[in-house]
């Protein structure tokens, strides 16, 4: 049965995030030849609506209000509920981002609905939409479905391929008004600590350091490599506990779970908790002095050696490769 699926478009630095395009692609599967509607919420998001359509949405809806300039749970809940009241969709898809994680369970509770969080795949089986999602931080997976009622899920970044951008595609964009008021939380200040724009969970390339990095300064060569490759820097719990870096960089069973195209583990031994957070990456490179380190068991390519020697050489080599490819 064709369905109407609402996909929330999320912005970062004024641009739509990749995960929103991935969610549109998932929406296409969920809609079963029905309609995918892109929803944008903010204080000035109208110009981005056509971009959601170019990535596969059939039409767009925007909710704009000055009280929506920063994300707040209450503000975005009110805005999204106004859209749902008008559209009465069959399904909702968000990215499994900080915003998606915060907003989706509150909406699901309000709607008395089920919610499938952090899906890495979507498929149709015997006419039913089935989601695959990691459990135990990726040590295992489960298939989950919602038998009846609203289909509601969040999509993990980097797992479902977006559709190809179609410049010629266009569609209708309408506006829904909502009165955004009585917000119970207020954002007083945002302190930017993350590296320029590349979010760890969404990064296509992650360079991660462990205890072998030895100090705060030891992360410098990793940062340089990440910069050359356009990747993000992550860390093992060991490096975070030793205060070499901020906990927000931690990858593992506690911390973030990442699935980039390329994961380069530098001076990380490969404790089971860390492996849970990264072993589903597409390609894994391990650089470690200890040839018996467990990290080599999940690595596609390994270099046994001192990261302080290997990583700067890699940076130089990739600079050459990148220069050559231009």
């Amino acid at each position, binding site marked *: 049965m064709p369905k109407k699926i609402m996909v929330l478009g999320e912005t970062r630095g004024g641009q739509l995030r990749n995960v929103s395009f991935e969610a549109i692609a998932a929406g296409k599967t969920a809609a079963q030849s029905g309609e995918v509607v892109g929803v944008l919420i903010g204080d000035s998001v109208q110009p981005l609506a056509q971009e959601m359509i170019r990535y596969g949405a059939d039409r767009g809806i925007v909710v704009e209000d000055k009280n929506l300039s920063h994300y707040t*749970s209450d503000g975005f809940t009110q805005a999204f509920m106004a859209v749902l009241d008008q559209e009465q969709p069959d399904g909702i898809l968000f990215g499994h981002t*900080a915003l998606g*994680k*915060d907003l989706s*369970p*509150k909406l699901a509770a309000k709607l008395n609905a*089920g*919610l*499938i*969080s*952090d899906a890495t795949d979507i498929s149709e089986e015997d006419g039913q939409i089935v989601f695959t999602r990691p*459990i*135990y931080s990726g040590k*295992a*997976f*489960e*298939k989950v*479905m*919602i*038998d009846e*009622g609203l289909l509601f899920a969040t999509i993990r970044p980097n797992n479902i391929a977006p559709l190809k951008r179609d410049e010629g595609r266009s569609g209708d964009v309408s506006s829904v008004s909502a009165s955004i008021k009585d917000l119970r*939380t*207020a*954002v*007083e200040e*945002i*302190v*930017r*600590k*993350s590296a320029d724009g590349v979010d*760890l*969970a969404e990064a296509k*390339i992650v360079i991660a350091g462990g205890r072998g990095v030895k100090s705060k300064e030891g992360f410098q060569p990793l940062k340089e490599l990440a910069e050359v*490759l356009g990747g993000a820097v992550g860390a093992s719990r060991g490096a975070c506990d030793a205060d070499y870096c901020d906990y*927000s*960089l931690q990858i593992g069973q*506690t911390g973030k*779970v990442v699935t980039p195209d*390329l994961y380069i583990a530098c001076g990380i031994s490969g404790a089971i*908790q860390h492996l849970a957070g990264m*072993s*589903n990456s597409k390609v*894994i*490179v391990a650089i470690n002095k200890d*040839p018996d380190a467990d990290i*080599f*068991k*999940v*690595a*596609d*390519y*390994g*270099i046994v*050696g001192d990261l302080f020697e*290997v990583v700067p*050489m*890699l940076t130089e*080599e*990739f600079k050459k*490769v990148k220069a050559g490819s231009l």
Partner: protein
Amino acid sequence: MNLIVLMKRTFDTEEKITISDGRIQEDGAEFIINPYDEYAIEEAIQLRDKHGGEVTVITVGNDDAEKQLRTALAMGADKAVLINSEEDIEEGDQYTTSKILVGYLKDKEADIILAGNVAIDGGSGQVGPRVAEGLGIACVTTITNIEVNGQNVLITRDVEGDQEKISTSLPLLVTCQQGLNEPRYPSLPGIMKAKKKPLEELELDDLDLDEEEAAPKTKTTDRFMPPEKAAGRILKGDTADQVKELAALLRSEAKVI
């Protein structure tokens, strides 16, 4: 202050996972307090020590969770509540758990409810925010700092590595992120005292909740292990050659650069 912590018993992070007949095998596995819930317990104890009041730790599960509740009491919580859903619910989901918790919490007038940001087994991070919505109170997720002044609350939350400073007021539910605090280990006197602290056990009937109301909305149809990775390649030769070879492989074979 009436502080309530939502706790979950989970597999130890050291454990390997095995599946048979589509179910996770629990025999012989070690269980712990979900690591994110330890931050919640620690923060609740610190808030109580500063502002006075009482910390109640609550879990939904079966008798086995008594061990983790005693550990929370040994850390310094004052009371524990086990809502035993084993008899009534065969397989619940996040909707189920939050309905049960709301059933218990609706007349408890908590000032702050603290939960983990996510449980390391199911990994959905839904129950905390769902409970807040069910109780009609505000909710702030992934907090790394909290200061309470009378009814006013200042919170720092982690948003993908950035910090958001939030002002709000009581009553409130928060979910706790790494970096909030350093959870204490139970002391020996703490463990002795914990044995005498109250641990109440309830069933769904005691909450005036029938199992239909808490019936899950989602259905798990299969569980499986990720595909085994083939053994990787350890590069040979001197370091300069290995580096060159790696760059070439990532470009031509793996096609990720």
